[in-house]
């Protein structure tokens, strides 16, 4: 039993059919607990009032936006090295999810920033590099959509994902060089004393876990869709060949 068994689309479909309801259910439960706990059973911040509660959407989605790109990077590497189609399709499936998380991170940040910083948007390093990450997602998705041949598309987007990772990383630090920030430091940490109070941290961790499982659910669903549409295309091609 090795992980590469799931590189077989059939095996992947079988396992994911069984796993999907559980994963989806877990995502719902974790998010419900985390969000309800966070929104209704934590005190309001003495300075920020109730706006502090947007943290339960903002921080997890921002973390997942970056993690989704890493997942795509791993998927791309596996595709380039071992040529497993499921891996390439999973990377393809993850991109729009990652872009959505990026947008959620930016929009919730703007909604929080308006009362707190007095502005919807500031050219702060974190905000700027996040916006640039969104642009990388856009380019990646556009390239997938533009190339007709499926294998070529997988090759090209994988190369783009790898090179893009390097440049996204560079941009992150270039932006830091370019402008000092307004954004606060990390909200959570396990090894330092300074982070948000535990009252907020526990529901926040629950929300983060919920977002991780939500991401897994969405990627599984989208990968299954991709595999099915690939199968349909293969069937149609076979049928056409039969008619001719």
């Amino acid at each position, binding site marked *: 039993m090795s992980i590469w068994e799931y590189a077989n689309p059939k095996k992947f479909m079988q396992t994911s059919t069984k796993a999907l309801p559980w994963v989806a259910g877990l995502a719902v439960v974790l998010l419900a607990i985390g969000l309800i706990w966070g929104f209704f059973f934590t005190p309001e911040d003495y300075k920020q009032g109730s706006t502090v509660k947007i943290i339960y959407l903002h921080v997890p989605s921002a973390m997942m936006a970056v993690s989704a790109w890493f997942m795509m990077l791993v998927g791309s590497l596996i595709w380039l090295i071992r040529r497993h189609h499921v891996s390439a399709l999973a990377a393809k499936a993850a991109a729009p999810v990652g872009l959505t998380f990026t947008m959620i991170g930016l929009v919730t940040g703007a909604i929080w920033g308006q009362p707190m910083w007095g502005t919807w948007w500031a050219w702060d390093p974190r905000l700027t590099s996040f916006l*640039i990450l969104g*642009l*990388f997602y*856009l*380019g990646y998705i*556009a*390239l997938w959509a*533009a*190339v007709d041949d499926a*294998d*070529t598309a997988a*090759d*090209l987007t994988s*190369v*783009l994902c*790898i*090179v*893009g990772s*390097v*440049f*996204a990383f*560079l*941009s992150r630090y*270039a*932006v830091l*060089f*370019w402008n000092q920030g307004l954004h606060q430091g990390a909200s959570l940490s396990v090894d330092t004393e300074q982070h948000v109070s535990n009252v907020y941290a526990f529901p926040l961790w629950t929300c983060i876990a919920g977002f991780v499982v939500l991401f897994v659910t969405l990627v599984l669903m989208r990968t299954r869709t991709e595999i099915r549409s690939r199968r349909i295309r293969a069937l149609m091609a076979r049928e056409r060949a039969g008619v001719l």
Partner: protein
Amino acid sequence: MRALLQRDLRLALRAGGGFGLGLAFFLMVAVLVPLGVGPEGALLTRIAPGILWLGALLACLLSLDRMFALDFEDGALDLMAVSPLPLEGVVAMKALAHWLVTGLPLALLAPVLGLLLSLAPQGYVWLVTALLVGTPALSLIGGFGAALTVGLKRGGLILSLIVLPMYVPTLIFGAEAVRRGAEGADALVPLMLLAAISLGSAAILPFAAAAALRANLK
């Protein structure tokens, strides 16, 4: 390798339009910006480094889709792929040729446009140096983007969508070097980082671009 470089240079210089177009575009940007933001010298002095870098970047972008597309269409690229010269070398030479006909003249023309945008006097040396150091990265990154999109019908649009985010670090360090130089501050740090990006791109991107070309030619 040299033959390929000479061929590309000759094609760029003689076969109508490709060569001067980028420069003319650069000039246009420098003329249009003051018309857009108003003629006050102080404001122009402040934004000149950024505008000049942006103009150079966009001018570079203009000619990128031609880097491989023509050779791809008439089959010359297939010949190069099966020739003894490795595809990485082909990409490197193409990027070098692109730089020689866009980046280098842009850097040399830039002081004149700096004059139009009333760049501070200390800034000129830094402007030319930064463009000389930074534009190779633009050509190399662009070469990678062009290799990715060479087989596409709407390649040009996607090319800019892919390439422009990757230009961010170059733009930041380049404009920062000129800005600091113009203000008389120490501009060496951004300049060195800019050189690092160019050298790193030269080391890595030909391989990535060659991989993309192989996928496209398959």
